């Protein structure tokens, strides 16, 4: 004879075996919850993160820093007049249509001489 069991039979069979939560587990969980509350950091516990001022504090701080950086930049812009090259000699070879410029750079180093 074949057993014609369906999902409902299995459901009833599974549900017929039930267990209560042991009382020691309940008390342990309650103790853990109390312990957790006590050990929580006092400072963080008393900060209300729902407060809009605290909620947006990182955004305000970033904006403030951006403004500060914009107004007082850490790296000063280089003096353009110093960076511009200085033309020392300029002469033309008119017959060959050549113009020669001898330029002195500010960061020019005579490395060969150093050796």
């Amino acid at each position, binding site marked *: *004879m*074949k*057993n014609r*069991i369906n*999902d409902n*039979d*299995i*459901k009833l*069979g*599974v*549900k*017929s*075996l*039930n*267990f*209560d*939560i*042991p009382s020691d*587990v309940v008390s*342990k*969980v309650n103790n*853990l*919850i109390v312990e*957790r509350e006590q050990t929580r950091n006092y400072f963080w*516990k*008393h*900060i*209300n993160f*729902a*407060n809009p*001022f605290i909620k947006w504090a990182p955004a305000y701080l970033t904006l403030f820093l951006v403004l500060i950086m914009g107004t007082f930049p850490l790296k000063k812009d280089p003096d353009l007049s110093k960076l511009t090259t200085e033309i020392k000699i300029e002469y033309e070879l008119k017959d060959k249509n050549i113009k020669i410029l001898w330029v002195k750079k500010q960061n020019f180093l005579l490395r060969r001489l150093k050796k």
Partner: protein
Amino acid sequence: MALPSLIFSRREKREISIEKTDVEIKETFNELFIPLSRNLYNFIFKSTNFSEDANDVFQETVMRALKYFKKFDRTKSFKPWIFTIANNEIKRHFKNKSFLYSDKNVDALCEKFHDEAERKLVKAIYIVAENLKPRDRQVFFLFYDNGFSITEISVMTGIKTGYIKVILSNARKAVRKLLEVRNEK
């Protein structure tokens, strides 16, 4: 000069609101959790093969749920959320332990049933469940014990619906086969 008083009043207000929210969170958690606690414990206990470790898993589940309850979307149902946490805790538990020793014998558990047919059925079901893989056992109990739909289980466990159907079908077949064998005897 108005600044200190302003800060003080804000601080006062803040403390009151914290007390309110903390109490509210606890109350709402208790309201939602207490009716489900027995089901949750049974799911963990059965999924861990009636092991004593179920107590630890249950504790960890409750603590984790309480920790992340602030992030829980109140518009959604609480039951799948907490069962997902329990499912993950069981998974973590099985990851650490390759073998779980069952502290209770299925025969002993089924002794309370006076009806012979019922006893046979329950025995067959729990023997089949005992021999399933941990993940399959969780799916089995989520479906048959807690009444979750296949799609809900799929979302909770991350297993595809087709495979869940296969797991359930195989379990059903195994129960039938076991009952047939026992009847023949």
